[in-house]
């Protein structure tokens, strides 16, 4: 999950553990929502000559919120392979579907969260209600599990009781909490948080920000300022800018990712609420159009319910019949 700068700590990427159920829960939850789609995929025997098969596949991807361009891309690749004689059974079709999805969702670069700097600064962004604060609590918890010390900065100075919510998570995770007055300058809070981590010798700073719609120019400017001020306090920071995307989000998620990335150089997506009926296909659209990787997934409300993203597992979880 993390690049801590010290190799042995990267336990979360151990393939042993992965097969042992790291993704079990994600698959379990995904499988509930996937039932309808899988039934559709199984309902038709694969026959490349049957145009209905392709329509059904298209439908399944659209229903998963993958969006039209990404769906077309996946279908065209499959069709090309089918025309070349590479696919003859429904089983092969399903396997290749998952693999193609995984390919599209694997942009170059390190999929882990970079916390190799001292201190490392992680800036958390996203629209309202996507799960920023909850995700921060979980990330802090996983960092503590990896024996790293954490400071959480409450730069959401706007929403009622946002600070109290974050403080509860900081307590649960065992992280330092840098609070702020309601209505305080969020950039100043971010600055103070980095300063506190430096003076206390903490490993990682996670800065929470207020939820904002990507269309609110003044709030996006505020976010730019937070980003800039962090960089002024500590050269090279923030090292990670994570954007939370709610798995239930439709095609607007693409616009969210685009505008947030334009404003603050987003380094990765945290795909939240994957434990519901939503399939999170918007992440495929985001990876396809913007090349932004999903780095973490949220699958519940507990401290533990955060996982590194694995594109192959995600692809299989979306389409595999027996997962």
């Amino acid at each position, binding site marked *: 999950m993390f690049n801590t700068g010290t190799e042995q700590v990267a336990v979360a990427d151990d393939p042993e553990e992965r097969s042992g159920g790291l993704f079990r829960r994600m698959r379990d939850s995904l499988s509930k929502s996937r039932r309808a789609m899988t039934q559709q995929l199984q309902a038709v025997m694969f026959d490349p000559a049957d145009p209905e098969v392709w329509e059904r596949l298209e439908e399944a991807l*659209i229903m*998963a919120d993958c969006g039209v361009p990404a769906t077309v891309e996946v279908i065209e690749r499959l069709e090309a392979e089918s025309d070349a004689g590479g696919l003859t059974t429904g089983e092969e079709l399903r396997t290749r579907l998952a693999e193609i999805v995984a390919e599209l969702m694997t942009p170059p670069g390190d999929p882990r969260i970079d916390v190799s700097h001292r201190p490392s600064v992680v800036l958390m962004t996203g629209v309202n*209600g996507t799960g920023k604060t909850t995700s921060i609590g979980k990330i802090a918890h996983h960092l503590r599990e990896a024996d790293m010390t954490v400071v959480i900065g409450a730069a959401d100075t*706007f929403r009622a009781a*946002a600070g*109290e919510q974050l403080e*509860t998570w900081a307590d649960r995770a065992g992280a330092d909490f840098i609070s702020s007055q309601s209505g305080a300058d969020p950039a100043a809070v971010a600055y103070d948080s980095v300063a506190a981590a430096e003076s206390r010798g903490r490993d990682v700073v996670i800065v929470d920000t207020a939820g904002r719609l990507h269309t609110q120019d003044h709030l996006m400017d505020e976010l730019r300022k937070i980003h800039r001020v962090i960089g002024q306090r500590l050269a090279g920071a923030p090292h990670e800018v994570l954007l939370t995307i709610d798995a239930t*989000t439709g095609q607007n998620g693409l616009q969210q990712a685009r505008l947030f990335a334009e404003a603050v150089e987003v380094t990765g997506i945290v795909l939240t609420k994957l434990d519901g*009926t939503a399939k999170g296909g918007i992440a495929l659209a985001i990876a396809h159009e913007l090349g932004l990787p999903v780095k973490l997934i949220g699958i519940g409300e507990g401290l533990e319910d955060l996982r590194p993203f694995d594109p192959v597992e995600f692809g299989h979880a979306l389409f595999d019949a027996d997962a």
Partner: protein
Amino acid sequence: MFDSLSDRLNGTLDGLRGKGKLSEDDINKAMREIRLALLEADVNFAVVRDFVAKVKERAMGAEVLDSLTPGQQVVKIVHEELTSLMGTSGAKLSFANKPPTVILLAGLQGSGKTTAAGKLARLLAKQRKTPALVAADVYRPAAIQQLQTLGKSLQVPVFERGTADPVETAAWGIEQARAQGRDVVIVDTAGRLSIDQEMMDELVRIKQKVKPHDVVLVLDSMTGQDAVATAEAFREAVDYDGVILTKLDGDARGGAALAVRAVTGKPILYTSVGEKLDQLEEFHPERMASRILGMGDVMSLIERAQEEFDEKQAADMEAQLRRGEFTLEDFLDQLRMVRKMTRGQGMAGLLGMLPGVGRQIKNMKVDERQVDRVEAIILSMPPYERRNPKLIDGSRRRRIAAGSGTNVQTVNQLLGQFKQMQKMMKQVGKGKMPQFPGMPRR
């Protein structure tokens, strides 16, 4: 708010507009575009299929092919079908004969329930009701504090019992509200996933216990295809009466609303368009459909203007107009009124509501400093100049330019525009033109 969908439809339908006769091929092409547009707008797949089939059937029919302007006819059909899909009239909450009315809010995590509870309380208070809030979200950290903060700012009582059982707390809170003579009680519940059986059961138990007069589903307008599954699951569990659609101030196309309406038949009661507590608006399906088609939301604009426009000011101005007087002072008043109407959405938000403006304005940033400049120029004139701009000669113009930090050209421009406006206003005063937005109808 539905810009992209209207872009798409307009793009296709503009092509049809010029045509005298439509071939089946033309119609198929248009239907494909409509289908893609709706899918990209997050309208549920099945709903899209039905919608397109219906439009196509009517488009192929005699009413279009025999028409001299079949393109216009397709536009009309899409508009009509869209309107009927959105519902036919503005739905309302129902109130108890014997207060208090109990309103139960439910929805997924992060859909905006707590904020919606605060906004609803404010709206009801404005309608001379005495609302109270009950905090039945005992799971999310600080959810209760959030509601308390909102209640405090609204001066509305908030009843809570910490993390005690939410079913009991809801019932207890309503009793407290009744004892204090409050006539509406809004119960805020925890966000829950529709597949979380335990939590859905809890919601059902709350409903059974408190017997609400209205159950309202709070739905994020950015929701994708999953909206239908969620809406159906909540309907099965608590059979809600209507929907509050949130976060509509973003650029989400809001197809989820179309789909939920079409699949569950439940009306959309309100739309929530910002984080300020006054930003809860009534939902008007026919306006929304017009808006989707880029015809602009003129009614909402007028309504907002009426709300913001001071009655006395309006009467004064109307009298002046009748006498054929319209001065730079009136112009300044109007300017300030427009600024008030934009209410934090900025000028672009306001202009987006005007017919035909939506598409052009999308990528354009309106320079609000322009408004400041005009204000500065007018404020650099003594009152007698504002009332009688004819006095403003060359040397006065130079003085005004210097005083407002602009230049003579800008002052000239403003005076030219004002002269045009004055002419127009004279005609309005003589009853040659319909009343302009902002004038209350009497």
